[in-house]
């Protein structure tokens, strides 16, 4: 199965976050902290559930850090690394 590129992961994350915060995906900046985008704890956990289902990875067991989940850019990179390891 073809593994998704970082760009593709970012797009999927952006779409999911846009849905959660009620913004247009084009207004979601990938270098902005999630809380500034308007994500709350429920939205964040829903995002984790989406990631685990979409990318078939166990996020909690992939060694992801608090810093990694703060922005779409860093989160996409961590997911990419987890998929490729």
């Amino acid at each position, binding site marked *: 199965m073809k593994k998704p590129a970082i760009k593709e992961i970012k797009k999927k994350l952006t779409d999911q976050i846009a*849905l*959660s*915060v*009620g*913004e247009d995906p084009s207004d979601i900046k990938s270098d902005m902290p*999630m*809380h500034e985008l*308007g*994500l*709350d*704890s*429920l*939205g*964040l*956990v*829903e995002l*984790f*559930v989406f990631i685990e289902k979409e990318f078939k990875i166990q996020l909690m067991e992939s060694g992801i850090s*608090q810093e990694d*989940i*703060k922005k779409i850019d860093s989160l996409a990179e961590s997911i990419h690394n987890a998929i490729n390891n």
Partner: protein
Amino acid sequence: MAHFNTSKRYYLNGIDWVMAALDRLNSQQTGLGNHSQLVLVLKGHLDKIKLAQRISCILSQNLFFKGSTRRAWHLAPYWAPEQHNFDPKDMRFFNLESNNKAMDDGATEENLDHVLQECAKTAFKDDKTLLGFDLIHCNNHSYLIMRFTHRMFDARGAERLLEYILDEKKDHKQYSLPSQNAQLNAWKSRFLSGQCINQFLRSIYSKKIHVVQTFNINNNNAIDSISNKPGFNLNSKAGNNHYFHYSTFSNDETCTIDDNAMKKAGYLMNGIFILSCVAKSFDSLFKKHKGIGNMLIPINVDLRETKFTTAKIFFNNVSFMLFNVEQGLSITEYIKNLKTQFIDQVKNKIPYHFTNASLLMRIMPLNILSWFMNFRMKKNPCSFSFSYIAEQAFNLKSVQNHGVVNLFHMPLVPVAPGIGVFFTRFNKKLNMVISCHDTTLSRKECACLQEKIISKMIPGPDSGKI
């Protein structure tokens, strides 16, 4: 001119129906329904006449103000809005400004507190009225109060409605309530959700035999004795002994809480951190009341997007989670435990299943549903209610050129569990309100609880003031 489309019906969702049943239950037990009030604090004095005219104008143009529930031929309940003009005289005005400069500031604060509490306990004119407004001038500030019933508005919906009413820059002639459909399809999915909820509740209730039953709740004698108290000013039939303790944290204090939450609970887990501090603070209280067993904590979760349109002002867009935790844990243990339950419940779509399964409850008439809820709440009483609203829905910077300082909520808590701790954030400041019945907890104990919660969230005893 009304802008409701009369060719459509505004069907109630399951949570609206549950809220209506809770409203009925509360009315029977306390004389007040399932109400709350928003308190908007502004600098300077709002012009009361201009404000009343503004409210009257918007409410007369739109059908926000009154309505009732009816059943369609297929039994699905729907909202029937009614055209009714808001009389500007119905907005009460309290001038608490003191001309006597020597008067103690503390006395003014006390008066303000008293009026805020009394306003929160004011019943609506009749069963059909959804909103009420009051204005207070005090300490060169204005306190604009909007009372609302949860039958048709949840907390964030009400915030958005207040913004809609006060926003002078927008054209309000375009508002139309989007119809909710009857949702009389997908029965299999609703029953499966019901099954999930039953399994979930069984697992929650089976963890320990007892939930904490420390307080004298749901006691008709207690309610009778309160209604007979001398000087107890009731504006309702059965009696009403709600009271509130509220605190606003400064920017610095809120930052400290956020930092503590980040360090101890993780990124964006402020709600879990705060709930852990609240649970820990209840520990000693339960110990004093010789409560045994686990704590059972229902929490409200908002299912809307962070930024939602005026179309989602009406109806209850909320669901529930339920946490069961042992007493006597450390804050770190509470965080770990609650976080695990939170993640599990989101993974298992419990909030979704609650809303989906609740659609089935609409078949029950309100009197039967409220009886059933009362039975369940007596059988399995909760320890305390909790909610944390991380994102405000009111975003106006000023009203009549007076800067907005704060916005907080004062919700009445149902007789069971009789105590609730509610947090909201406004302009990067955290507000805390403890809502309580004095059959549940004495005012002294409640003040003590407030202090404990604050001390758990931030170091230093003097934090948190209105």
